[in-house]
């Protein structure tokens, strides 16, 4: 029973981060959410020094920064990446300065290490209820506004041209991200919370090219690495945030290796079988130019002796990125 609450907390944290991370990536607001994650850290540092309720103040700070970033990026002529990086530097400086200027009492508290490195002790029933509430509210929002959200996911510029308020929906997404980060911050730590937001979706993007599968895989991976990180933290007495971040990075690396291996195997198979997914077209210096339909890449690989060759390239290659991984 003692382990149940942290376990449930890790599972839900991973799920909500993986779910929101997918939308963050497809909406193209990764830099914005990164800045919000660090504003939550600054909020937590300020609250610690001033003696406010850390969770509530962090939540307030994250939500306020989400609204500010949403407003600035829609109004300012300056590129939003520059705005975000400027705010990111400022907020990090605020966080560090607040901690530096605080009393020795604050520096020696468990709360400080919780904010910076995360702690399983920070997972409480209240936080689990908060995470469930945020996740449920987001799901309700995503279902009600599915037509607009689908239009944004499919083509943001076209959706905007057709009258979908893309900036409003992006700001709403950032609000959900800000709220989730404010709650999860004390579990994973302020410096590593974004690893749960980005690494699962980055792994999902590598494991599948289909958006609906990515949408499914991302929260599953998020939950899995969060639980595995929690266990690693228990077993080896490590900071829970670093354990989760490390495992999510390992998952990302394994996903990359899997993608490269799958691409290679598919290309090999297509060379051996004329009816495979790709076809061999031209032979040049013992190498064959392969058009690979599934992974949308064009690559050179070694020619087997029995290779049937053709001439010319399909017109589709003109719109495919050229990836010479094996050349």
């Amino acid at each position: 029973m003692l382990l149940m609450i942290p376990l449930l907390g890790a599972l839900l944290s991973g799920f909500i981060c993986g779910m929101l991370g997918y939308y963050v990536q497809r909406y193209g607001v990764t830099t914005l959410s990164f800045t919000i994650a660090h504003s939550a850290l600054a909020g937590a540092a300020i609250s610690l020094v001033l003696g406010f309720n850390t969770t509530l103040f962090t939540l307030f700070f994250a939500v306020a920064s989400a609204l500010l970033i949403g407003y600035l990026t829609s109004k300012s002529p300056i590129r939003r990446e520059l705005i975000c990086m400027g705010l990111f530097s400022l907020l990090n400086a605020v966080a560090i300065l607040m901690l530096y200027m605080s009393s020795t009492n604050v520096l020696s508290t468990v709360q400080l290490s919780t904010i910076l490195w995360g702690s399983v002790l920070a997972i409480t029933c209240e936080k689990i209820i908060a995470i469930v509430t945020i996740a449920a509210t987001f799901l309700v929002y995503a279902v009600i506004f599915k037509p607009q959200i689908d239009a944004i996911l499919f083509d943001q510029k076209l959706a905007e041209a057709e009258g979908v308020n893309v900036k409003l929906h992006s700001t709403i997404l950032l609000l959900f991200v800000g709220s989730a980060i404010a709650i999860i911050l004390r579990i994973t730590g302020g410096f590593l919370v974004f690893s749960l937001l980005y690494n699962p979706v980055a792994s999902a993007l590598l494991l599948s090219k289909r958006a609906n599968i990515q949408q499914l895989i991302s929260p599953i991976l998020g939950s899995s690495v969060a639980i595995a990180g929690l266990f690693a933290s228990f077993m080896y007495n490590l900071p829970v945030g670093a354990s989760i971040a490390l495992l999510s990075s390992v998952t990302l690396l394994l996903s990359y290796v899997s993608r490269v291996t799958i691409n290679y195997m598919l290309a090999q198979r297509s060379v051996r079988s004329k009816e495979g997914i790709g076809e061999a077209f031209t032979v040049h210096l013992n190498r064959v130019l392969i058009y690979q339909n599934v992974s949308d890449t064009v690559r050179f690989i070694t020619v087997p002796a029995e290779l049937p060759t053709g001439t010319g390239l399909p017109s589709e290659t003109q719109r495919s990125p050229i990836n010479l991984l094996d050349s």
Partner: protein
Amino acid sequence: MQPIRGEAVRLENVWITYSGAGKPAIRNINLSIPFGVLTLIRGPNGAGKTTLIETCLGLLKPIKGNAYLLGVNTKDERIFEVRRKCSYVPQDFMKPPYEHYTAKKVIEMGLSSNRVITDPLPDYFQYELEFYAKELDVLSLLEKPIGILSGGQQQKVFIVRALIRRPKLLFLDEPFSSLDKESREKVTEIVVNYIKKHRGSSAIIVSHSFSKIEEYADIIVTINDGVITDIRFQR
């Protein structure tokens, strides 16, 4: 200067500069497009045609001057509501092979700006979907993922999506770029008929390669190096 009622688009001394660019993409543009006309914008590559069309839609905001779409300044918050009366087929429409949305779903998305999940599709949707899809020879492709369709087929799907919105103003950016001769003529015929059928609707077509549309265009705007060099009224 107040926008005149009855103008679909009005640009007053408009300058657009992309962030980081040394010189403006378009400069000192003055243009008025009334309702019920077919306008062709032509010019060489890099002349500023797409910038001009995106400025009309309010996707790009002028650094100087004002742009009005259906009488509303594109810097106004109400621009989202106005855009719901417009349709746009972008130049860079191609989707990657793994894009999973079906062609029908993509067309349906065109009606998403006014809908939440509980709102039904309009009564005319199914009829017009079949009509335009049949006319453009994509009826049998509606249930297929958009990503596996060829460039020409995808472009036709986006044209169906634009038309099914029943727009007051139709923006088509290089709509013939991936189409064969027969399809180009079909699209021209459909757009011309659309304007005739939906009285008061306008279409603005950007094209640098196809001359057939010139026969039907009421206004031909020539742009070069970011400046309008000629405006010809044919009717």
